[in-house]
């Protein structure tokens, strides 16, 4: 018996398929968390802790019924990162997050493509009325993506614990529908 997460529809964009995590993603997920690029994602971790983090990533889907997707390239199926909803203990609000696992896949707009798709899903299917992204003050790449997604730094929002992340507030569904071109393109 090796059950997978079943019944979770994938989200498809121009270049990506965002699908539920599978056991086979564990090695790539753990490798990212063991490397230096994971510094804003809770790492770097030892292998045993990285594997547990993957189990948590899966467990979040089980417990919440929503979660973060594995970002795969439509052309090759290669898993290159993750994007989607995240709402663990200590988060005041439901979050949209994104991670590109290796530098070779950065700078191509993939995280933005994934973030737009997961935000549209969160608003349109999950029924969220607002969304935030928690971003470390030193994580300038994610900050600039947040700006391109139409987010604004929300200084009044409750910050997550533990940690020192800033709260970036996404345009809500009404604002997006009213036209917010830089956030929809």
């Amino acid at each position, binding site marked *: *018996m*090796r*059950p*997978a*997460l*079943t*019944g*979770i529809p994938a989200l498809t964009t121009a270049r990506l398929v965002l699908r539920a995590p599978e*056991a086979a993603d*564990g090695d790539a997920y*753990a490798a990212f968390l063991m490397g230096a690029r994971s510094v804003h994602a809770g790492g770097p971790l030892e*292998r*045993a802790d*990285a*594997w*547990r*983090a*993957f*189990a*948590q*990533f*899966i*467990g*979040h*889907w*089980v*417990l*919440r*019924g*929503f979660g973060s997707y594995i970002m795969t390239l439509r052309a090759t199926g290669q898993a290159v990162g993750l994007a989607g909803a995240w709402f*663990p*203990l*200590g988060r005041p609000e439901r979050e949209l997050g994104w991670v590109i696992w290796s530098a070779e896949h950065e700078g191509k707009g993939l995280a933005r493509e994934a973030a737009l798709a997961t935000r549209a899903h969160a608003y349109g299917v999950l029924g969220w009325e607002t969304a935030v992204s928690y971003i470390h003050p030193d994580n300038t790449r994610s900050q600039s993506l947040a700006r391109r997604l139409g987010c604004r730094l929300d200084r009044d929002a409750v910050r997550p*614990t*533990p940690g020192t992340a800033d709260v970036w507030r996404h345009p809500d569904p009404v604002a997006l529908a009213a036209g917010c071109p830089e956030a929809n393109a």
Partner: protein
Amino acid sequence: MTAAVALPVPVLTTARLILRGPEERDFEAVAAFGTSERSRWVGGPFNRFESWGRFLSGFGHWALRGFGYWTLEERATGRVAGRVGIIAHDGWEEPELGWHLFDGFEGQGLALEAAQAARAHAAQAMGLDGVISYIDPANTRSARLAQRLGARVERDGFLLGQPMQVWRHPRLNEARA
């Protein structure tokens, strides 16, 4: 709230316990255990956030491995008494039969009752027969329970860098003897 994505966790029933899959409502008991003295035998103590992460990984463990920790629910009261099950996180040499009771439930034979049911189910339905238990040499209570379960010390070993005795449980046909 129950799990939103159904896990195929079998429900086992013993004289005094129901062994069921983890549910979100178990978390307060798990978090309390994490700060209790006895959590040192499972790598603790753990603060609330650490306990949450480990709790969440327990759901993922079932999804990834097809086996995991059951929550022990006392049939008479519905209270959560502890956890028993088969785990094999990364770093485990083999799937392990593990157990821990929460404060107030020890000394009644509940761990024995649950471990027998979990071990039998693992052997009969999960293809996990003759499993091991990692027990800290100083954890005499768990060692006594392992003895009562018919397990024997096979060797000295390590789990995640910590010295452990590796106990081997009898296979199903041996356990009947």
